[in-house]
């Protein structure tokens, strides 16, 4: 082996030593972080969130240490620096090796002794590992000395590992209620995994969930009171545990062990019933004959999961005081998802419907809740009526033809599509072409407007043909148009009450209101189209379509809907001439406030107690919160914040939360614009 080869071997030995030393110090740094945090955790319990971040921090510390050391000793890669290092160890070289390396000529060190270069470098590499390895041994010893589970809580933190923590604090010593872990197992039907909560103060869980409280030591002498039942925990492997089931109402679970006690607020989460929407048929209808097939479609969804979906029907026959009913279910389907679409069809022929019969259809879905359910969700009901022979003249029930309103809707939709297409290709068209095509759409829009006007005129008792040939040149007809517009404006802009038989507006105007809105919008659309501005016309056209759609959905005429206008002569009924004095004092009804009053009294007492016994205040607020969860959720939420703040020792936040609770308790300010009739004012 020549001198340069030995130099490279020595450099390799030194580099290896440096890398190994950096790795060892990196490991020491990472382990030190873990051990340090574990030591802190033994004294002061650290939260799961903090511990979960420590592992990443330890790895980062290790990598940073390795990188720093490697950077510091990077000169080992330089042959000149290694040569100088060897010159220092072997002064007899008299800089011949450095000169040889710089000149690249091995002959400068031809006579030098090179045998001990490599061994010297290897010894140096080994020596550099002593310190980090010693530190590693020391860290390992500390790990072994640490209480069982202390390092595991930092290395692999998980919810519920507070039972594994070796407590040294005075408060934790001898108190079997701390640490405390709650394991929440949702009902089996949900298919959800169990969760674990350390030091639970509030447990929010689905109604029917199985909650198991666990603690350290034997369960002898510990008592748990929940919903009036007293339970004693069982013991296994020096751990006590006691299970209970989450009911449908909020409750307080009290744990006691001699003088130690804990209260846990249990807030049930209700499994909501499925939400079902009947998509088809989209609205009620009247059929001339009970033939054909009706397609049924419905959307269903549930917060946990659907189990069964179906359509239900009821056939009601008869009139006046005599009705008979038949019912049944169709399209039942097992579901296993959070959302589903139900579909089926029903043949009217098979139901043996007679004139006057009403078929009520709705969709129903059930969830898999076998604890408090099943939750049943139902859609809105659609009524399909078979017309009686005497009604043929008064209701349009042609088998396939759409009603006028529906025809209008289809045409309006087509016009919108035409206008949109024109607007899209407008940049490529000459202005004359745009105007010509826009005029064409405007003409159709005007025809459609006249049709809608006819419907409205007929219903308002006017002459349908008056609008048929409307032309600005004909003043007589223009008057009709003016009148129609006045009525339209009156109905659509000035009044907002849809149906109130006590007001001045005739019900027939109210029924026609959407069509009048459509008429107005069509008017504006036609004007813009005639000006060759389809983009300006489109919003009006869409408004017209929406109004027609509204009319189609809303129009529902009850032939017997108007009761006879009987007006009672109050004076006559009271035998006129009698001095009736003033009528009895009446006040508007308010929700009974006895519960709120009691709650306010409790709250005041608790606040008063805060200066004397802060710990009792936390428990009292928790109990008050449980009582208020159902009736006063805002108040309960403020109490929850107050409890959290008190536990964290944040006095300002607690004061703020208690102030919010007080405001929630007091309710909104009552403003009266005058003195009450029986007020105490002199």
């Amino acid at each position, binding site marked *: 082996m020549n001198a340069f080869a030995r130099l490279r071997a020595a450099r390799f030995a030194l580099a290896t030593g440096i890398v190994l030393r950096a790795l060892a110090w990196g490991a020491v740094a990472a382990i030190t972080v873990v051990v340090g945090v574990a030591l802190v955790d033994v004294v002061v319990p650290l939260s799961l969130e903090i511990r979960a971040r420590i592992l990443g921090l330890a790895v980062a510390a290790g990598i940073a240490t390795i990188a720093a050391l490697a950077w510091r000793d990077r000169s080992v890669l330089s042959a000149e620096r290694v040569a100088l290092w060897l010159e220092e160890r072997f002064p007899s070289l008299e800089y011949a090796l450095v000169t040889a390396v710089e000149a690249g000529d091995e002959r400068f060190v031809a006579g030098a002794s090179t045998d001990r270069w490599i061994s010297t470098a290897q010894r140096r590499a080994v020596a550099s590992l002593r310190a980090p390895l010693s530190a590693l041994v020391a860290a390992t010893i500390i790990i072994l000395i640490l209480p069982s589970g202390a390092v595991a809580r930092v290395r692999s933190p998980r919810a519920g590992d507070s039972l594994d923590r070796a407590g040294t604090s005075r408060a934790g010593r001898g108190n079997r209620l701390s640490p405390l872990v709650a394991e929440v197992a949702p009902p089996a039907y949900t298919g959800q995994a169990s969760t674990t909560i350390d030091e639970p103060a509030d447990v929010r869980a689905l109604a029917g969930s199985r909650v198991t409280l666990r603690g350290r030591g034997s369960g002898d002498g510990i008592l748990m009171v929940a919903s009036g039942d007293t339970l004693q925990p069982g013991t296994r492997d020096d751990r006590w545990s006691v299970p209970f089931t989450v009911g449908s109402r909020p409750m307080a679970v009290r744990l006691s062990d001699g003088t130690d006690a804990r209260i846990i607020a249990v807030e049930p989460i209700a499994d909501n019933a499925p939400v079902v929407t009947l998509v088809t048929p989209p609205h009620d209808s009247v059929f001339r004959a009970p033939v054909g097939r009706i397609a049924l479609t419905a959307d269903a969804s549930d917060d946990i999961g659907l189990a069964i979906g179906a359509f239900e029907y009821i056939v009601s026959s008869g009139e006046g005081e005599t*009705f008979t009913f038949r019912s049944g279910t169709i399209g039942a389907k097992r579901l296993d998802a959070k959302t589903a679409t139900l579909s089926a069809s029903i043949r009217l022929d098979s139901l043996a419907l007679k004139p006057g019969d009403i078929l009520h259809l709705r969709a129903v879905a059930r969830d898999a809740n076998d604890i408090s359910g099943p939750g049943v969700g139902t859609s809105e*009901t659609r009524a399909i009526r078979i017309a009686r022979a005497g009604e043929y003249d008064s209701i349009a029930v042609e088998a396939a033809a759409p009603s006028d309103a529906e025809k209008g809707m289809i045409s309006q939709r087509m016009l919108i599509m035409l206008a949109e297409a024109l607007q899209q290709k407008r940049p490529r068209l000459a202005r004359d072409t745009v105007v010509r095509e826009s005029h064409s759409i405007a003409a159709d829009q005007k025809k459609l407007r006249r049709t809608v006007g006819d419907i409205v005129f007929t219903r308002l008792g006017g002459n349908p043909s008056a609008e048929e040939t409307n032309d600005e040149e004909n003043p007589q007809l223009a008057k009709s148009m003016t009148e129609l517009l006045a009525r339209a404006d009156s109905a659509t802009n000035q009044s907002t009450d849809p149906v*109130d*038989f006590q007001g001045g507006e005739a019900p027939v105007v109210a029924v026609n209101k959407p069509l009048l809105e459509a008429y107005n919008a069509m008017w504006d659309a036609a004007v813009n189209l005639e000006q060759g501005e389809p983009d300006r016309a489109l919003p009006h056209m869409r408004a017209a379509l929406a109004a027609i759609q509204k009319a189609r959905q809303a129009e529902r005429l009850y032939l017997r809907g108007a009761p*006879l206008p*009987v*007006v009672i002569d109050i004076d006559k009924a009271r035998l006129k001439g009698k001095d009736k004095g003033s*009528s009895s004092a009446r006040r508007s009804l308010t929700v009974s406030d006895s519960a709120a009053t009691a709650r306010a009294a409790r709250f005041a007492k608790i606040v008063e107690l805060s200066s004397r016994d802060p710990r009792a205040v936390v428990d009292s607020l928790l109990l008050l919160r449980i009582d208020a969860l159902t009736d006063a959720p805002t108040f309960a939420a403020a109490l929850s914040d107050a409890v959290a703040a008190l536990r964290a020792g944040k006095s300002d936040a607690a004061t703020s939360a208690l102030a919010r609770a007080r405001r929630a308790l007091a309710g909104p300010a009552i403003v009266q614009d005058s003195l009450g009739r029986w007020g105490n004012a002199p």
Partner: protein
Amino acid sequence: MGKRPVSAEFVFATAQYESGDWDSAPLLPANIIDTIARYTEIAVAPTGVIVPLSDDRMLRYPLLYLTGHLPVRFSDAERRNVRLFVERGGMLFVDDHNHDIDGTFHKTATQEITRTVGPLIELPNDHQLYSAFFKFDGPPTTSHELNGWGDNLVHKHLLAVMRGGRIAVLYSSKDYSSEWNYHPDSKRFMSIDNTRFAVNVVVYALSA
């Protein structure tokens, strides 16, 4: 038609709902108004109103009367308003015009009430309702019950959903809708006014 202000006088309101024949007793409101005027000093409007349950204006009235023969299925808006109405202290008086315990109105209405407001319970016959104005030993029977029409039963109790100690929903299978559905002038032919119980319902609704 302007907006109706919250009135200082009692206005008898009939609830209009989407699914059924809510107007099956058109003469009843006038008859009750006449009765209220005859026996009490309550300031009462001479005509009733019909108010859709889906319309927020239903919240203006302390008492809503609901009847019909056909299935009762509230829409989402109706359900929401009824819930709000009851929470605000209103009283919903539901009467089965079929007077048939197995009838579809009964089944669907009780189902819908339970779903919307809460479960119905039997109202004790010594409840404050029966002494709110006239004294009754329980709900007065109707001729339709006694003549065997409907379910052949004489119902001993009314049903109710209670809220904060008061009646939030009063449910009757007695068919007062048939019993009271006549022109008030016809009362002169009666030895005993059979609408007196309506006074108790109204007085209770206004004072409880």
